[in-house]
């Protein structure tokens, strides 16, 4: 081992970090070399000076200053910092997110109400359509319902009011056939002559009541939207384009269609027509005026109120009464006294106030 190699190991030797074999070699050289021994002694003295240096002390109040800075910040401050810092990165991202959310909200705001209105508009359709009478030709009824609904989406504008008007216009197209001065030839051709004759009296009554309600709803549509339809459609359309007319024509016998078409029920009647009565029947009388007087007297005696009435043509009239459930038996007995009362629709469960629809007919 040379002196230079030996001196390279002096630090490790003094620190006790030298492995035993190397330490033996170094110590053997030191024992034989006075220069290296003196060098090691000087290094040891220098290390002694270093180790003798007094330890530095942190300034007074250092701990308090550290703790003040390191004191946990409230959660809302940390949350705010987390949201905003580094602000150069996060604020633009958050602004962009806000814009996207705002645009999405506007989009939903614009789209959803229209869908809701469309759903609201579609909902009454099934209830306004009377239940098919047992003898009624079902396929024809389906066609009458399908045809007006088919053009509805195309004609529906974004506004609900406009879409309602458009619907009325579409519905009034159906009504144009009965009110047209000359019935379309196709209606006459399609009208099944045998469809009226085989009807029994009861089924005829049911069919008549159902078609009465249908006529009310269609009549309402006609009243509100008919003018518009007239303005839009050329007069020849009712004859040259008989498509809407035959839709309803085959479902009803021609005389009844004309009677229903001739009736012009008001808006409240149409609104009521959406809800079928709880019960209905036919009161056949000889003298209608006398029957009316008796009915008024019966109503007054039993606390029955008249909800509305409508001329059904040919001198017949449809009257809807609100009958308390407890008075229903007496009332129907009274009806039997006035004329021949026949139940048309007798519900198994009756509400406290029964809407009883009476077809007063000769």
């Amino acid at each position, binding site marked *: 081992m040379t002196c230079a190699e030996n001196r390279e190991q002096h630090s490790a030797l003094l620190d006790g970090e030298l492995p035993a074999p190397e330490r033996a070699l170094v110590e053997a050289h030191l024992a034989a070399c006075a220069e290296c021994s003196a060098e090691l002694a000087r290094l040891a003295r220098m290390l002694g000076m270093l180790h003798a240096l007094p*330890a530095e002390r942190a*300034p007074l109040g*250092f701990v308090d200053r550290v*703790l003040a800075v390191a004191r946990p910040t409230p959660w809302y401050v940390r949350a705010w910092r987390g949201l905003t810092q580094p602000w150069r990165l996060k604020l633009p991202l958050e602004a962009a997110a806000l814009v996207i959310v705002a645009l999405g909200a506007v989009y939903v705001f614009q789209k959803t109400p229209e869908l809701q209105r469309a759903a609201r508009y579609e909902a009454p359709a099934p209830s306004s359509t009377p239940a098919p009478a047992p003898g009624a030709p079902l396929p024809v009824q389906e066609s009458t319902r399908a045809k007006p609904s088919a053009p509805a989406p195309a004609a529906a504008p974004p506004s609900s009011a406009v879409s309602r008007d458009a619907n009325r216009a579409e519905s009034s197209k159906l009504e144009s056939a009965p009110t047209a001065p000359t019935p379309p030839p196709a209606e006459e051709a399609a009208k099944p002559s045998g469809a009226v004759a085989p009807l029994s009296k009861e089924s005829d009554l049911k069919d008549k009541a159902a078609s009465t309600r249908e006529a009310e709803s269609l009549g309402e549509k006609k009243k509100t939207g008919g003018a518009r339809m007239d303005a839009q459609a050329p007069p020849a359309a009712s004859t040259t384009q008989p498509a809407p007319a035959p839709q309803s024509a085959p479902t009803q016998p021609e005389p009844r269609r004309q009677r229903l078409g001739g009736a012009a029920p008001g808006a409240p009647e149409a609104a009521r027509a959406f809800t079928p009565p709880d019960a209905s029947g036919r009161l056949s009388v000889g003298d209608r005026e006398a029957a009316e007087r008796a009915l008024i007297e019966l109503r007054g005696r039993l606390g029955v109120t008249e909800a509305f009435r409508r001329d059904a043509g040919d001198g017949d009239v449809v009257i809807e009464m609100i009958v308390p459930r407890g008075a229903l038996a007496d009332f129907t007995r009274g009806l039997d006294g006035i004329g021949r009362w026949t139940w048309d629709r007798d519900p198994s469960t009756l509400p406290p106030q029964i809407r009883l629809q009476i077809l007063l007919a000769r």
Partner: protein
Amino acid sequence: MRGEGPSESETFLASLRAGDPQAFEDMVKTHQHRIYGVALRMMGSRAEAEEVAQETFLRAHGALGEFRGDARLSTWLYAIASRLCLNRLASGEHRMARRRADALEVVPGRSEDQPGGDLERSEREAALQRAIAELPEDRRVVVVLRDLEGLAYDEIAAALGLELGTVRSRLHRARLELKDKLERYLT
């Protein structure tokens, strides 16, 4: 190691990791002087030394959850402080400030404040402080950690992320340099 610290029991470390303010305060109180001492030897300025020491504890406070306890807590704090010092010293801003000052601030030994300190000892300590301050930073930190703070070679290697041979070599070079500068006090 000089002035070995508080018990680094599992309970204490668990409290620290859990963010217990009292445990953190105890840690700062226990290690403040040693961390400040390293920073002062490295930075050569009391103001900068306090900044570095304070930042060391704040960084430790933010990273206590990640302290696994593989090394001693004091070694972990030395590692943070040493790296902060080296980073500051390596920054261009610090170098320019040093150049303007044209000389390192000689850190006065605490023996000057003590009534029993004699002039020769004060002069020797001042020379030693100056010699340490004039060491290259990578050697200075090794000397400070080993000869002033008493860390073992492997602890220094772990704290600075160096090989053991590199620590041994740098330490030896630094000591030879100090010995040469302090030759007249060694006879």
